[in-house]
């Protein structure tokens, strides 16, 4: 890195204010263009034929009748997508998931695609494609798939991470283990032990915008892709690799994105749209229906988790143990591994062990969903912790404070923590008026903690200063929820100019170097770091130009509040030069002024939150109403506090939906029964109360302003916070998420 990223700035003029976002007016007037809001001349409509079966061999696909239908310009099967993955198993899985090759592996798996002159012709053509299937036994439940006699989904999967290597294939693709100390010896010393098995159902990110793209492949080998994605550089890489293109010849432009939450980190339709365009010789627009989004994008894992925690009479947790089984769809994954890493990350533990198993099932390939894998592990652990606190006879907040990780604690997943926020969030919760508010009949209060790693990654920005002194900032991390506002604030802060003088745009893949995608809560963290670095590089040039204008040595020029200032006895009386004045003269002092930065944004500070939830259960119907909700989370430094609050509130709302109602429901036939927003019901406005937020700022020492990622941690505590509240209200420990009315009634009757 070409600049010092350590925490260096403690007072701010722009950062920490709450201006209106730069993309706001377009979004309230309908002008903003999302994935489906773009068209090209001569564009065709693409559609995908999907398997109705959970598990079957594709015996034959006859596309001849579809190809002959007037208006059909291209028909595609896996035969049109040869395997160019060169033994890269993960890419082969992506290829097979985009278009089934030998077997269909879940209800919704793509088997063929068409491009036609309009939607009705395309739909008609799909009906003319004949697919002959040979049905195979299927398994959609994580525990059933884990059993030794389960139907085998992929006979090349031998569990990795076990020694010796198993002698036969299974549905378990990997075993992972983390921890330290002697768990068995620790558990033997425990005065109180809680041991439970928990289960969570599969949920979907539920972004309101379905996947959409427009692909245009030219006969000269160049191509353009317009797409809603969290990572257009990653999409470019994947599409180019799958289609045998040079990455530089494929320009990917990220549209405005109508929600992603991890679900738009993976290609599904995009390679198909490109292949259709290449075959038809015309642009192809491909937009998923909501049914397709549910059946054939990437929901999160269903899980089954065993937890055992032991404590001494003084409230010290002496041993903690968990075994986590996560479904990963029909391909190998690493989701339980992440669950196993996060499960006990909030606590200072002498003896801890977590074991994760990745379990293949005949469901869509699991994708990331906001702090992927952490909410389920936190549900299990934080439920057991609550129960253990009761056994010990301690208040659940005090019990957690006693065992909370601190600076210097060796985390259960390996590293030693720097300054962290778990203790402060717990103290804030202990003192929050919410904890003292009275509760009525059938009401309960719960609290829970959550952890997320956060991520930095490869980042690149260009900061260009116009001749009029205004600033264009080009970044490569897709703005999923307001980061253009944050990054404009950061550029303004560093240059010492007004927020209104900066315009931040998301550059396409041909206009900027590679950027990792907006995941791991890295958008504002990493791009602000690169923006600060780019601005400091620009300031270096601004100082040089001022020195030239004054004809003094550059060492005698400093940059203060948007101005070059001459110092020293000989020229201290020179009037300062504004950025605008220096920019206006740039044509005669050496040309355009810009700052660039290419970094790996290391040092994403880990993030902790503690939530409080009050609920009321209707004992007649089993329905649960959330009465009050409070989020306390460490932001490091909140760049735009309103959007930080928005992240806290949005994650909490998603977690509440997961806790109470959302789940994928599969029939015995292996088909998804609720692939729509009517039956997969996410929280609506009348389901929720106001969500109170408290932002703590414990600076991340690895970022110049102390910033930590804030996007994901807020979804980690709610499952447990709501479950603890419900358990307290009904007097029965809730073990299965979502706590839908039938499950609550069953628990009450048990």
């Amino acid at each position, binding site marked *: 890195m070409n600049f010092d990223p350590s925490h260096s700035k403690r007072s701010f003029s722009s950062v920490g204010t709450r201006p209106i976002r730069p993309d706001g*007016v377009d979004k*309230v007037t309908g002008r903003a263009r999302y994935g489906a809001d773009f068209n090209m001349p001569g564009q065709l409509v693409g559609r995908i034929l999907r398997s109705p079966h959970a598990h079957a061999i594709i015996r034959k696909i006859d596309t001849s009748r579809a190809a002959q239908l007037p208006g059909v310009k291209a028909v595609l099967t896996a035969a049109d997508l040869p395997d160019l993955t060169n033994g890269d198993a993960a890419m082969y899985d992506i290829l097979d998931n985009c278009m089934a090759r030998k077997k269909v592996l879940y209800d919704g798996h793509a088997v063929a695609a068409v491009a036609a002159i309009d939607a009705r012709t395309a739909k008609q053509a799909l009906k003319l494609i004949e697919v002959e299937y040979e049905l195979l036994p299927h398994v959609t439940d994580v525990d059933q798939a884990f059993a030794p006699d389960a139907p085998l989904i992929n006979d090349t999967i031998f569990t990795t991470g076990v020694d010796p290597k198993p002698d036969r294939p299974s549905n378990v693709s990997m075993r992972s283990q983390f921890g330290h100390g002697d768990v068995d010896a620790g558990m033997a010393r425990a005065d109180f032990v809680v041991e439970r098995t928990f289960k969570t159902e599969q949920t979907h990110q539920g972004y309101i915008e379905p996947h959409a793209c427009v692909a245009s492949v030219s006969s000269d080998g160049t191509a353009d892709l317009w797409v809603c994605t969290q990572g257009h550089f990653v999409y470019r890489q994947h599409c180019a690799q799958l289609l045998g293109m040079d990455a530089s010849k494929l320009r990917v432009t990220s549209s*405005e994105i109508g929600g992603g939450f991890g679900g738009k980190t993976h290609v599904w339709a995009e390679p198909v749209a490109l292949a259709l365009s290449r075959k038809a010789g015309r642009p192809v627009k491909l937009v998923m229906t909501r049914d397709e989004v549910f059946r054939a994008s990437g929901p999160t894992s269903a899980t089954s988790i065993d937890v055992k925690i032991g404590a001494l009479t003084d409230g010290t947790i002496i041993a903690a143990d968990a075994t986590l089984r996560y479904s990963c769809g029909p391909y190998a994954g690493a989701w339980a591994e992440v669950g196993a890493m996060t499960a006990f990350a909030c606590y200072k533990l002498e003896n801890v062990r977590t074991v994760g198993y990745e379990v293949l099932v005949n469901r869509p390939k699991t994708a990331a969903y906001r702090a992927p894998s952490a909410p389920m592990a936190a549900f299990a652990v934080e439920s057991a912790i609550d129960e253990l606190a009761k056994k010990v006879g301690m208040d659940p907040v005090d019990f957690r404070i006693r065992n909370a990780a601190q600076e210097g604690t060796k985390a259960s997943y390996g590293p030693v923590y720097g300054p962290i926020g778990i203790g402060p969030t717990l103290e804030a919760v202990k003192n929050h008026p919410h904890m003292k508010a009275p509760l009525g009949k059938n009401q309960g209060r719960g609290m829970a903690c959550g952890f997320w790693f956060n991520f930095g990654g490869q980042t690149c920005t260009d900061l260009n200063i116009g001749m009029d002194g205004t600033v264009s900032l080009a970044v490569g991390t897709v703005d999923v929820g307001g980061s253009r506002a944050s990054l404009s604030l950061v550029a303004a802060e560093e240059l010492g100019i007004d927020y209104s003088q900066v315009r931040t745009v998301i550059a396409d893949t041909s206009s900027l170097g590679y950027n990792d995608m907006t995941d791991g809560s890295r958008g504002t963290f990493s791009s602000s770091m690169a923006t600060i670095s780019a601005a400091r590089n620009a300031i270096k040039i601004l100082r040089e130009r001022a020195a030239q204008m004054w004809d003094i040595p550059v060492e005698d020029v400093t940059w203060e509040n948007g101005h070059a200032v001459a110092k020293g006895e000989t020229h201290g009386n020179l009037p300062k030069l504004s950025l605008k004045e220096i920019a206006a003269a740039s044509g005669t002092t050496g040309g355009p002024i810009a700052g660039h930065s290419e970094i790996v944004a290391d040092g994403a500070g880990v993030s902790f939150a503690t939530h409080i939830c009050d609920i009321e259960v209707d004992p007649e119907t089993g329905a649960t109403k959330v009465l009050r909700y409070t989020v306390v989370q460490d932001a490091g430094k909140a760049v735009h506090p309103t959007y930080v609050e928005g992240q806290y509130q949005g994650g909490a*709302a998603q977690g509440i939906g997961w806790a109470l109602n959302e789940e994928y429901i599969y029939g015995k036939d292996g088909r998804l029964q609720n692939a729509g927003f009517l039956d997969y019901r996410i929280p609506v*406005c009348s389901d*929720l109360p106001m969500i109170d937020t408290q932002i703590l700022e414990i600076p991340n020492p690895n970022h110049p302003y102390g910033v930590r990622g804030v996007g994901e941690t807020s979804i980690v505590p709610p499952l447990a916070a709501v479950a603890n509240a419900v358990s307290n209200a009904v007097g029965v420990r809730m073990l299965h998420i979502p706590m839908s009315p039938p499950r609550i009634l069953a628990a009450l009757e048990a």
Partner: protein
Amino acid sequence: MMAGIAVSTNINGDNAEFLCHADETLLDVLRDRLGLMGVKEGCGTGDCGACSIILDDRLVCSCLVLGAEAEGRRIETVEGMAQGDQLHPLQQKFLEHAALQCGICTPGFLIAAKDLLAKNPDPTEEEIRFGLAGNLCRCTGYDKIVRAVQDAAGVMRGA
């Protein structure tokens, strides 16, 4: 190919004529034939409200209305809310309160809120929550949306 149905309608105060198929939704007509891309499709089944429009003073999901049904009717979409560069108070308050993150649901919420405030200029929090329950937002948790609507209602009442 069947002949199109000729439809005369009024959109955001301007007369509009179009041809559509008998089975074509008003949503598809607005987006694909008339270029009103502010009307969003989130589900196509009337469950998310992203395609909300006001049809003769009634809030509807345009994905559940046929294009041919627009004959002789008045349609209001998000594109008609601002007057020139003067934003509607709801649009202004959505910006000030950061009542949007990704923004895909925003046009539908603005139209639904406009309809709500036309019928109930001084709604309680609960009335706002139930009035907007037909619109899904996955980003905000609704908190800032409710506050923006409360604030805009005050401005519109002259309070």
